[in-house]
Every structure is written in C-alpha cells, then in structure tokens.
C-alpha cells in the first residue's frame, strides 16, 4: 500500500524534506512511524511529544491506516 507522509516545522527540518511516499503494509499510524524511525534519519519521530494526524485530523498512534491516506507527523503545536 502507498501512504503519503507529511512532516511539519522542526520535524521537516530534521528529516530534510516535508513529504514522502511510503510503500509497505501498515496497520496503524504507529506502524508507519516505526518503519520510518528504524532509519536514524527519522530519529525525530521517536520523540515522546510527537503529534500525528490522519487525513487532516488529529489522531492517536493506534489509528488504523488505509491505502491512500495522508499521515502527518509534527511537534507539539504552538499557535495562538
């Protein structure tokens, strides 16, 4: 399955780009995160304060993933 992964703010700077097409079988958002974090380039995804969204809605790491989903990883939000 193909998943579109987005990174924002400090995470985008840490990995060096803001989007990535990922191929593989993933049951949950956390499975996508773990597959990426196996590469030291994505070490920032191991931060305990990481936030994530699926198809533009905040979600938990155990959120199920489907083909064509847009998954985003980002640090705690700081608007307002």
């Amino acid at each position, binding site marked *: 399955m193909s998943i579109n992964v987005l990174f924002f*703010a400090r995470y985008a700077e840490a990995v060096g780009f803001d989007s990535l097409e990922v191929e593989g079988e993933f049951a949950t958002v956390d499975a996508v995160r773990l597959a990426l974090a196996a590469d030291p380039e994505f070490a920032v995804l191991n931060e305990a304060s990481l936030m994530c969204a699926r198809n533009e809605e905040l979600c938990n790491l155990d959120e199920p993933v489907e083909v064509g989903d847009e998954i985003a990883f980002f*640090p705690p939000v*700081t608007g*307002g």
Partner: protein
Amino acid sequence: MAIRVQVEAFDPGAEVNAMHAANVGVGAVVSFVGYVRDFNDGRDVSGMFLEHYPGMTEKALAKIAAEAEQRWPLLKLEVLHRIGALEPGEPIVFVAAASAHRQAAFDACAFVMDYLKTRAPFWKKENTPEGARWVEGRASDHSAADRWK
C-alpha cells in the same frame, strides 16, 4: 461561524464591531487578541514565522468552533489566525464570541483559545540574536485545555 487563516494584518477593533453590527440580539461580545511579543524565554525576539498545515488548519479551527457552538448558545463566533512573517506588536490571533448574555461569550472565547493552543496545527519560529528557533509547546497549555473535559 467564521474561520479565517490569512497572511494579511487585521484590525481587532473593526472585527469586534462587526460581531454585533448585523444583530441587535447580541448582548455580549467577548474577544481575545494575541500579539507577537519582542521577548520570549530569555531572548529578544525581532520577529517570527508562522508555519501551518494548509487544509488541516481550517478543518481543525472549524471543528473547535463547532464544538463551542454546541456547548454554548452563541449568536456569532469568529476565529482568525495569521500565518507567515510577523513582527513584534502585530496581532496574530483573534477569537470573538457573541451571545445574548455574557457568560456564554466568556466561556466560549476561552474554550476556543485553549483548544486552538493544543489542537490547531500552527508552529512559531522566532528570530532571535542567536538565530531562528522553534517555539516549544507548553505543558500549561494542555492543563488549560483539560479543564473543559
């Protein structure tokens, strides 16, 4: 509700006036304006850049506003947040709630700001004499949001 995410500056006074201009049933308007400060966490701040998640930002703000409208009897609710480059002294966020009586407007305005702080995908990057740095999230923002559960 009105949700606006924009680069352009805005006039908070004009926004407040517009909250009741079209509805004489409005007895109370409570508004919040957040400004860019010139100092944060021990360093001078000469400006900042507001990054966001286009698409999700508008949805997240609309969801928060819809929840406020469910919880309180509001006659109007506006959420306006700027993105891009901002200088100290500039307004960055505006939230206003209009209702017949004050309590609903006070509570809704505080609720929207508390949820915006922890759920809307914005990130501030400040320019300081030591270079640009990302603003860290605060635990106190989460305890503020938790009081509405």
